[in-house]
């Protein structure tokens, strides 16, 4: 297993007040994402556990893209990966952010 953690500063907090949400399932090619509104409003942390080692730079790029697009300030995001492709990860992250905004 490989553990990766990325910390970002955002320009603004994620809108809404949902305290936590989960989306996705740990299955082949899929992943689960747990989002918790527990950090300062300009901080975002993404922690990943993945059985597929060696893809740190890809995760870093996908997470950076998500943070730039969603501005998920205040969120701690925890990921259990089942070998999801980058496009799936990206969609799940955006789906998770949307659930938190509801």
């Amino acid at each position, binding site marked *: *297993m490989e553990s990766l953690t990325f910390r970002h500063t955002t320009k603004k907090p994620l809108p809404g007040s949902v305290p936590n949400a989960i989306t996705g399932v740990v299955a082949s090619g899929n992943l689960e994402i747990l989002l918790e509104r527990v950090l300062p409003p300009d901080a975002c942390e993404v922690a990943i*556990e993945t059985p597929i080692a060696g893809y740190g730079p890809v995760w870093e790029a996908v997470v950076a893209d998500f943070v730039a697009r969603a501005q998920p300030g205040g969120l701690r995001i925890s990921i259990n990966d089942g070998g999801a492709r980058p496009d799936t990860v990206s969609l799940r992250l955006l789906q998770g952010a949307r659930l938190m905004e509801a």
Partner: protein
Amino acid sequence: MAGAHAASTDPNALSWYEATARQRVVALADPGSVQEFLPPTERRMSPHLPLFDLPRAFDDGIVVGRAKLDGKTVLVAAQEGRFMGGAFGEIHGAKLVGLLRAALTLKPAAVLILFDTGGVRLQEANAGETAIAETMRAIVDVRAAGIPVIGLIGGRAGCYGGGGLIAGTCSRLAVSEGGRISVSGPEVIETNKGAEEFDSRDRALVWRTMGGKHRRLIGGADVFCADTVSAFRQAALDLIGRAPAFDLATLEAEQARLESRIERFGDCRDATDIWARLGVNDPEAVPAMATRAFDETVSRVREADHDAR
């Protein structure tokens, strides 16, 4: 609860088979009534899977909690069939056993178990086997306290292995076309006995032998329902209202019924032979029947309704 906002939760539109465990629970219960115990934010994960370099799930593949069903309090457990085949690991099993034991104190109108499992998780097999035994014991205690335990089966993993044993101890079962109930799964049988005994790639054979319609016709399940969350909700309400007594007479009737079943059908080579012997006019037509036509067929088969399963 985390996930209460999960995508589409319209119970009429949501396929039970396609839904996640959490979506099933949220859509099955009265709106906004679900209170999850040990939710994903608690991170009660398997202590064993990291040893095998396998990913864990925040809820170890099972959602447990309290909810309302038509205003009545029920306890509910839902397995996630897509995480490790919904298999019983140590935490997964402990959550189900804990829920059942809590029922003795909380006295809900029923305990609902949304099965979706291939049985014991092989990477933590001893803990999983123990969990199966503890779950069956806990169900017996709950039923003895007068609380019905209802199994709902319609997920992609079916209900196999120890899950099939647990289902056998429930008060009542509802199953859909997609659901399957058995102990040894198709691939297990083929591996041990060969493809001539059971060809696991023959999907029609698998469904004829273990599928929801067969289980309903021989009385192994008490309701056959369409693959929607609202159909399962209706089935659960119906079954809570007519759970059998849990006493010596019921158990003796079950034993007598099982003996007569093996006597009547033991020489059959295929489920269609059994259906013909049960009095179904056109057994070959059963697999393609829609829910309503199938319900009419069931209503003409005496074997299908019986307090003893």
